[in-house]
């Protein structure tokens, strides 16, 4: 199940960029970054209200706070650089994946919700990290945009480790 989720998420994010070796342009990267953060904020907001376990609620709140911080900075930088986000296959896939995740999470409750949310967070952060390394950082032309991507990368690494810890504790606790 987890592997399937990870594969689906990775395919969603990398699908449009990993193909022909074409790297996204700066306006496309901005759209991908903003969408990637926004879908995790939306999932986090749902989990803040629906999660059963306190540590899952706390994680969800953290995701909303951290990804909002990253997104505000990305939007400010895009405005400063006069780069208008350009919707593209990757950002659209991310949005669709996010919408699908929300729809399936809304149908769940209790421990089942917690596991599904956390499983998706693990897959999502791994997939975004892969995209950051393989497409976004290599693709970024503007130095400040590239620097922002490099700066936020450790947050994705830490969130992934945090989500994996939670995933293990949920399995261990049988919750």
């Amino acid at each position: 199940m987890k592997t399937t989720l990870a594969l689906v998420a990775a395919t969603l994010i990398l699908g449009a960029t990993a193909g022909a070796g074409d790297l996204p342009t700066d306006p496309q990267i901005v759209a991908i970054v903003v969408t990637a953060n926004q879908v995790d904020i939306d999932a986090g907001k749902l989990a803040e209200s629906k999660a059963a376990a306190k540590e899952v609620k706390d994680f969800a709140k953290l995701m909303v706070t951290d990804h909002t911080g990253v997104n505000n900075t990305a939007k400010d930088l895009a405005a400063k650089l006069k780069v208008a986000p350009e919707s593209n296959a990757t950002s659209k896939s991310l949005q669709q994946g996010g919408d699908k995740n929300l729809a399936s999470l809304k149908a769940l409750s209790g421990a089942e919700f917690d596991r599904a949310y956390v499983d998706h967070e693990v897959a999502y952060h791994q997939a975004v990290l892969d995209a950051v390394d393989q497409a976004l950082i290599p693709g970024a032309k503007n130095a400040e945009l590239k620097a922002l991507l490099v700066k936020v990368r450790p947050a994705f690494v830490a969130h992934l480790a945090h989500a994996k810890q939670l995933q293990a504790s949920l399995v261990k606790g049988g919750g």
Partner: protein
Amino acid sequence: MTSQVVEAAEPAADGVHVVIIENMRFSPAELTVKRGEHVVWINKDLFPHTATANSRAFDSGSISPNASWSYVANTVGNYSYVCTLHPTMSARLTIR
């Protein structure tokens, strides 16, 4: 709990030690100070962090981006501390 914005280039005064919080790390990760000196944590990440001793001997509470928290190192000891928000972040403060 008071946070204040600190200029990034502000030099540390005598008896003041600075720990930069950036890229999900405390830097330096190990710091030794003398009793009575000040330690200032400056958050250069894009979201809040805390500097919280595992023993709760000190706890910054939430430090906003571009804000700082100052602590007077009054009690001798060896303190492991973490960011309570991000469990992957840990460091150590020694007061002697």
